[in-house]
């Protein structure tokens, strides 16, 4: 199945914010917004739900820390207990620094990997650009022409009313 898209190109973040807000209020289905930088407030404008990545970060960090504490205790006191400087077997205070480091490592790396996974960011992958300048200085609002009821002219008016630099129409082939 293919999708028919209506794309409005903008050159200013205020315009794209406004137009996105307006498009959502009018019930257009917003496929995506493309921007050269993270425009503040756009998630609200698009109505995106908050990301769940912090959970990944928290849980993996926690499990990393737990794993490390267990490992340190196991190696030092259980697997091969060795008297080091007369220190007690469970030298818990001494285990804290590495536990912390491993927690940060687990949390950080796993969050980024999760981010790559959910966003489909893979080395060498080339995604279609919405516009050659969309990573430079152009903002794009992509609306889906949902059905026959879609009033293309109205939509175009909306986009142009917000200083669209350009309005494009594109058919996206089924994947």
């Amino acid at each position: 199945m293919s999708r028919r898209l209506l794309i409005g190109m903008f050159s200013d973040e205020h315009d794209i914010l406004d137009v996105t807000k307006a498009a959502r209020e009018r019930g257009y289905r917003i496929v995506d917004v493309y921007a050269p930088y993270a425009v503040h407030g756009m998630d609200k404008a698009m109505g995106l739900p908050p990301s769940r990545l912090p959970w990944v970060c928290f849980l993996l960090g926690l499990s990393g820390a737990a794993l490390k504490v267990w490992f340190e205790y196991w190696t030092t006191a259980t697997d091969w207990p060795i008297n080091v400087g007369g220190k007690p077997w469970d030298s818990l205070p001494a285990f804290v620094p590495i536990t912390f480091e491993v927690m940060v490592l687990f949390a950080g790396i796993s969050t980024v990997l999760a981010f790559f996974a959910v966003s489909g960011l893979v080395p060498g992958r080339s995604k279609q650009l919405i516009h050659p300048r969309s990573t430079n200085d152009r903002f794009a609002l992509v609306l889906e022409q949902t059905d026959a009821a879609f009033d293309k002219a109205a939509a175009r008016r909306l986009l142009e009313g917000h200083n669209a630099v350009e309005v494009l129409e594109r058919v996206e082939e089924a994947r």
Partner: protein
Amino acid sequence: MASVVGANTAVTDPTPLLRPPLITGKKRLSQVTEDICSAMERRPGLLWWLAFLAALSALVLGVAAVSYQIATGIGTWGLNTTVGWAFDITNFVFWIGIGHAGTLISAILFLFRQRWRTSVNRSAEAMTLFAVMCAGLFPVIHMGRPWLAYWIFPYPNFRGPLWINFRSPLAWDAFAISTYFLISLTFWYVGLIPDLATIRDRAQPGLRKRIFGWFSLGWNGSYRTWQRYEVVYLLLAGLATPLVVSVHTIVSWDFATSVIPGWHATIFPPYFVAGAIFSGMAMVLTLMIIARKVMHLEDYITGRHIDVMCKLVIVTSGIVALAYGTEFFTAQYSGNQYEQFVFLNRAMGPFAWAYWTMVSCNVLVPLLLWFRRVRANIPAVFVISILVNVGMWFERFVIIVTSLHRDYLPANWANYSPTAIEIATLVGSFGLFFTCFLIFCRILPVIAMAEVKGVLARHGALAAETKEVA
């Protein structure tokens, strides 16, 4: 309130800004891309080549020294039974300290929403990476048998299995440094992805485009991705902030957990963290002042940036000075003759010259920055920043060498003087650092374009005017 210093454009600001703009010059978004990318796309200038050649020769010298040392033995350094560490660990702590400022700028200032960081965070992060590389080198090459360095990681083995000593601060170091490097690298790379995409999209088809294409992971500016990106960036900043504190705390524990007078001190963690930021800020200043000149980025790294960083230098210098005084006071107040002696010996013993170099560079010289005129004088700031780095190197040297060279038993007392091999290794680490940094300047955007663009829209000189249709 900071004033505009060193700006090359008179500002006519239509919107009543509370603060002067962060980016001077009337930049549009495309111009940002153009300014930053073109610096990379042009052929390098004579100045760059000269700097690169100098850095590369230093690196070659260092590689030669390290190769000779590994082939022949640690005896090629000036160390001895009494002074078991000197240049090696001094360099290690010094470079780690340098690295910390990068993380401070990119992560901590991000959390504090300090938007001025956008112009400098990319290169500060790069600085962190290269400094951590230099730092990580020293614990490895300082070993008697560096080819067995991997033994300090616990891995399954056929020895029983025999694990490692998790109580050793050196084992903590190994974990701290590798975590720090990996997290810094990740943080830096995640920040780079949008810019890599921008360059990819500018580049002509060819190898360059393919390489940037590979590394940009198919970034296309989708806002759904941007949203997650923002979250990830915030999380990483949140993780990196305690990390940077923990890393230097752990480094300070190398000394603080020991029994050697002059090392055995509870003040070390905050003292070291402050010192790290102090030296790192000075290094950022040094690098920024060079980079803005060489890469013509005066509009992005403005006088205001320099001013702000100078103030940070003043604050951290004050903390460090307080630590020096506290150390001295506690030692004399302690009634412990070994402690008392170590500090008097620092100030009046054979290494007094190093101690007073440290005090002058770290406490006295930064006092000049209290004067606005000094802060506005770029060459003066440059010189001060270098002096602070010298002073901070000597701080580590003083802590390590003066504590060791005269400890408990007078029969053990010894002196230390470096050999040419050690000096060449130090020079080599600077060579490695600057070689990496200069290459970075040429192949990657030194300024985070996506972030600057974001700031530009609200805080740029043209904030109002950009509404014009291009």
